[in-house]
């Protein structure tokens, strides 16, 4: 077993494009659930709608990249309004169900044969990302990095931009949550009726939170699609939402740095498990059939599912959370 390669891959995975996308999406989810107590199980839907917003604006309507970017984010705002208006007055479970349903609707609609000419069907949208690479300071054919970590120019660009954005949104969220606005969100999380009794319009604040977290999720989707230079409908399926939840819970809900740290650790662990499994197969400890074909992918999801359940049972406060503080929740 080549442990050096395994660890090196794990470190790379932790800083990779995938990790940064999850980090940004997790920041959005943290706003929703960590600070406001909203049960959003459709974060991948926000990612999808912004990614498609950008892709369709460019390929169908020849929009310049900056405009497409804005349209993509506006699409996320629209989705938040659409989901929030009916459900934010109701109990939390409703939002959970509606967000899952909505994210699947979005995926199925964009994937559908009927809308193929517009959204690319199951092939998705391609050839829209070039405009974003215009500012790429790196040479696509050169490798950049330090030590182990070396990637080609385009990837380096996305990774740099991605992590910069991740840090920017984290700082933004941090500033907001330190303010009275953030305090109101937290009060709604603790007890909506108490917040109302103190004169706060809980519905409107929840909506603002949904919009903010949704736009951040949309940003993650745009980073993903530009990074891959394609918008693939099946990249935006329910397991992605659950990955984001796992990353967030791992880091600790309601803490500033937990989305980034949680995402990095999550991807590192996932890469480790993939590589260790492959290593075990290579050295014959486990029969090859275990990870053959699509089975490897299934194993990864199994691990996430099990990990999520175990996390909630044993360490729901994650890395940064405080167990005692969690126990104070009036449930």
């Amino acid at each position, binding site marked *: 077993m080549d442990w050096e390669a395994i660890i090196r891959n794990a470190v790379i995975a932790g800083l990779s494009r995938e990790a940064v996308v999850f980090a940004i999406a997790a920041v959005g989810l943290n706003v929703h659930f960590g600070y406001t107590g909203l049960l959003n199980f459709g974060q991948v839907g926000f990612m999808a709608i912004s990614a498609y917003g950008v892709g369709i604006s460019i390929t169908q309507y020849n929009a310049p990249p900056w405009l497409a970017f804005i349209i993509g984010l506006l699409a996320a705002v629209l989705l938040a309004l659409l989901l929030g208006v009916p459900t934010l007055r109701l109990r939390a479970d409703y939002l959970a169900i509606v967000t899952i349903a909505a994210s699947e609707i979005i995926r199925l609609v964009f994937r559908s044969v009927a809308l193929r000419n517009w959204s690319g069907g199951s092939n998705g949208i391609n050839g829209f990302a070039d405009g974003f690479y215009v500012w790429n300071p790196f040479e696509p054919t050169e490798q950049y990095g330090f030590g182990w970590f070396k990637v080609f120019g385009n990837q380096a660009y996305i990774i740099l931009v991605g992590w910069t954005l991740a840090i920017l949104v984290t700082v*933004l969220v941090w*500033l*907001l949550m330190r*303010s*009275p*606005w*953030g*305090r*109101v969100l*937290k*009060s709604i*999380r*603790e*007890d909506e*009726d*108490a*917040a*109302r*009794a*103190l*004169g*706060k*319009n*809980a519905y409107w604040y929840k909506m*603002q939170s949904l919009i*903010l977290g949704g736009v951040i999720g949309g940003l993650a989707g745009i980073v993903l699609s530009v990074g891959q230079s394609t918008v693939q409908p099946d990249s935006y399926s329910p397991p992605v939402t659950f990955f984001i939840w796992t990353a967030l819970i791992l880091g600790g809900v309601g803490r500033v740095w937990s989305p980034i740290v949680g995402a990095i650790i999550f991807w590192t662990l996932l890469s480790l498990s993939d590589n260790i499994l492959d290593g075990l197969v290579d050295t014959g400890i486990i029969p090859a059939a275990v990870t053959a074909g699509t089975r490897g992918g299934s194993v990864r999801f199994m691990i996430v599912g099990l990990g999520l359940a175990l996390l909630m049972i044993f360490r729901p406060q994650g890395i940064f959370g405080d167990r005692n*503080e969690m126990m*104070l*929740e*009036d449930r």
Partner: protein
Amino acid sequence: MTTTSPLAGIEASPGIAKPDPILVVDDMVKRFGGLKAVDVGHLEIQRGAITALIGPNGAGKTTFFNLLTGFDRPDSGSVVFDGRPLGTRLSPNRLAREGMVRTFQLTKSLTRLSVLENMKLGPSGQRGEGFLSAMVRPLWIDQERAIERRAEGVLARFRLDQMRDEFAGTLSGGQRKLLEMARALMTDPRLVMLDEPTAGVNPALTQSLLEHVIALRDEGMTVIFVEHDMDVVQTISDWVVVMAEGEIIAEAPPAEIGTNPRVIDAYLGARHDTPLSLEEEEEVLELVEQEVERLAEEQPDATPDQDEEEAL
């Protein structure tokens, strides 16, 4: 201690007019299923006085509170607050900002926020509470500091200042009641509605709570509070309103309320703090009756009184 109150000389009769009412309620009705939970024909609350709202379990007092403060919608009714008619479809937060604030029977401390943060939520019109302005700290930081100073002052008054940075969830039950009252004060209310403020609080703390309630009145606020403990009612209230079966059956100064025959009837002559009989509960809570009957079929030896208390 009440001095010559403006309520002196008012006739003790349900729905009687008051010299300077801050709140006037007319024809407020709320039905649950086929049952009338609240049916208040006319009620006036005197400004600047402490009014106690009493009545047997299930009389509809908390429901009435909910209706007045927007946590529930009446089927019909009109409310005039401080001379202004209020729609009955107003949301609780609007009403709170109008100056009508309430506390809850089961305290709603925001457990994972600190005591001080709980307090700082009270005031309305905080510039920092807007999404865009929140991002620009200089816009709201001065106001925030002023609010913090004020909050610390109120906390000191309630003797909670030591706990200012503790999570509200670590407070004892009695401390939470104090916090809830202190927090309500931060909203600058004109009318404070306390839902069983002394329930579950030890006698020493009760004394302290009552002093705070009196202080509220002395500072010009109007107070309505729901209470079961008749000693408390006698001690601090200026006026007593009695509800039973959703209706107001009596109003009187505290000294006369114990001898009011209708009130005695409402409590069926039993001591006011003993559990109520089976018949009353069935009249008031049709739903619970169905439950009891259904369960009584299976468990014929279950005692009805127990069911009553659990249901409430």
